């Protein structure tokens, strides 16, 4: 796989990575990555943290780690330092590539920009390509190591998911979110240019469309929420954006009305709905959505004739095995052959459907969140006695926000500050209520339903 990536970089005579005001050609990418890889190669074999956001040096650093055969751990610079320290501890990483400024002296920091050297790369023994961290119900983030073999299998499969390899891809996801593995592979192995949308542009509608207008991506890799946001622009259609011909959605449930809107606005659009947990390398199934499918309650998430690994349904749960599936969590010695996803699904007419979760894991803005992790962190705040965290759904059964109830002699600001120190912003409940008592049912488990009803009543009472 790495050799194919090198050959791709050497033969492409175009831009590999484009931000609004900066760019990188494939040739520059290869040269810069090689220089950095030589430095990494001399500094041991443990995982390497890459700290940054969507700068071009992120791509250089990721490719450098792959070339140097060092597992990379993408860390978004918006994450709180406590989470980063926890990840450092779990991965035993010895160094951090400082794409964004990392103002702590707790680890050796390496600049992504290195001088050219003529030293050959040594091959190291390491099977892990990257480690992605996801929310863990124990209260700590959970590391998912993905091997070169997993990646290679994914990269062969993804090439067949797109009817044609995208010339350029609008990339919305942070590199710490493995939706971005799609554009990384398409870029490094198949020559697609990445057009990177950073968080400032993501939150500023005008700037987002300036980026699209200027660089004209032929494809978009996005969460369904991001697609919904793009569709708010009434002119987001094939007349105004004729260069867009493929949209790939993954990370959360794509709703029929979103898909139908996209297909109506863009006549010949190839709209791909994909599915897969991080444990099975970004995605394992995909299917092209047509207007007829949008008439049903749920959209399919995969074509059973074109899967990245084996997919079966056991007691209504989607179960994965085969080359895309990881071998076990970082902090666990348990070896995994069959991965039970916790996703409820079924197969009909050779199409795979995923319709929800067995547990309290939720998808919020494409991020996977264990409500139990938020509860664990909340309970660890001094003076918090009890807490309950629950999602608020909209009429489409999509999580629109997360709420929390807390008891204890503590101020709201302290709770918010403590949570923000330990959790990424998307995991901090927007509304936190300090209450006298959290209703409990007979089993002493938190009665989420009663809480939610009380919450609704309170809201209504305030109006």
């Amino acid at each position, binding site marked *: 796989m790495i050799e194919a990536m090198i050959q791709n970089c050497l033969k492409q005579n175009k831009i590999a990575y484009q931000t609004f005001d900066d760019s990188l050609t494939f040739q520059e990418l290869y040269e810069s990555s090689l220089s950095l890889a030589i430095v990494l190669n001399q500094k041991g074999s443990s995982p390497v943290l890459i700290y940054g956001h969507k700068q071009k040096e992120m791509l250089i650093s990721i490719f450098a780690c792959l070339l140097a055969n060092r597992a990379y751990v993408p860390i978004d610079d918006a994450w709180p330092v406590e989470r980063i320290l926890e990840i450092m501890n779990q991965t035993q990483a010895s160094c951090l590539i400082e794409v964004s400024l990392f103002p702590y002296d707790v680890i050796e920091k390496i600049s992504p920009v290195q001088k050219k050297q003529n030293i050959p790369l040594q091959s190291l023994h390491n099977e892990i390509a990257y480690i992605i961290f996801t929310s863990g119900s124990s209260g700590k983030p959970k590391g998912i190591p993905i091997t070169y073999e997993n990646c290679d299998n994914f990269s062969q499969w993804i090439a067949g998911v797109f009817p044609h390899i995208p010339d350029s891809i609008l990339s919305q996801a942070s590199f710490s979110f493995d939706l971005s593995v799609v554009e990384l592979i398409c870029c490094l192995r198949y020559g697609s240019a990445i057009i990177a949308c950073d968080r400032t542009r993501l939150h500023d509608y*005008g700037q987002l469309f300036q980026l699209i207008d200027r660089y004209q991506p032929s494809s978009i890799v996005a969460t369904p929420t991001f697609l919904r946001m793009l569709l708010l622009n009434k002119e987001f259609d094939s007349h105004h954006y004729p260069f867009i011909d493929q949209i790939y959605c993954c990370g959360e449930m794509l709703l029929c009305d979103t898909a139908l809107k996209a297909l109506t606005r863009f006549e010949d659009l190839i709209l791909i709905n994909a599915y897969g947990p991080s444990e099975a390398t970004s995605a394992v199934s995909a299917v092209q959505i047509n207007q007829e499918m949008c008439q049903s309650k749920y959209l399919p998430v995969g074509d059973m004739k074109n899967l990245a690994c084996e997919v079966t349904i056991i007691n209504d749960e989607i179960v994965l095995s085969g080359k895309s599936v990881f071998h076990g969590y970082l902090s666990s010695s348990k070896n995994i052959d069959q991965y039970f996803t916790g996703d409820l699904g079924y197969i009909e007419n050779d199409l795979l459907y995923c319709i929800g979760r067995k547990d309290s894991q939720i998808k919020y803005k494409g991020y996977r969140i264990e409500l139990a992790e938020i509860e664990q962190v909340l309970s660890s705040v001094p003076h918090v006695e009890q807490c309950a965290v629950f999602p608020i759904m909209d009429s489409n059964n999509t999580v629109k926000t997360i709420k929390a109830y807390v008891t204890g002699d503590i101020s709201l600001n302290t709770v918010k500050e403590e949570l923000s120190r330990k959790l990424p*912003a998307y995991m901090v409940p*927007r509304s936190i209520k300090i209450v006298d008592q959290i209703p409990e049912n007979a089993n002493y488990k938190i009665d989420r339903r009663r809480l939610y009803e009380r919450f609704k009543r309170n*809201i209504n009472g305030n109006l």
Partner: protein
Amino acid sequence: MKDLKEILMEICEDERVLDSSIDLLESGILDSFAFIELFSYLEDEGIELQPTRIDRNSLRSIDGIQKLIDDYLKK
């Protein structure tokens, strides 16, 4: 159409909406989700605002959003 405050309370589920000193964008109250919900709601009510042509500063307060709606209705 319902009162804008009421609409935003339903969408954002956050009482801070009622506090006129709070910046809806900086505080994260009007996040991407709320943004989608608000524009979809207004569209259903026949108020078809074009988000690419809106000054971002208008979205910082209820008064700013109300003005966008009023300007649209005047046209």
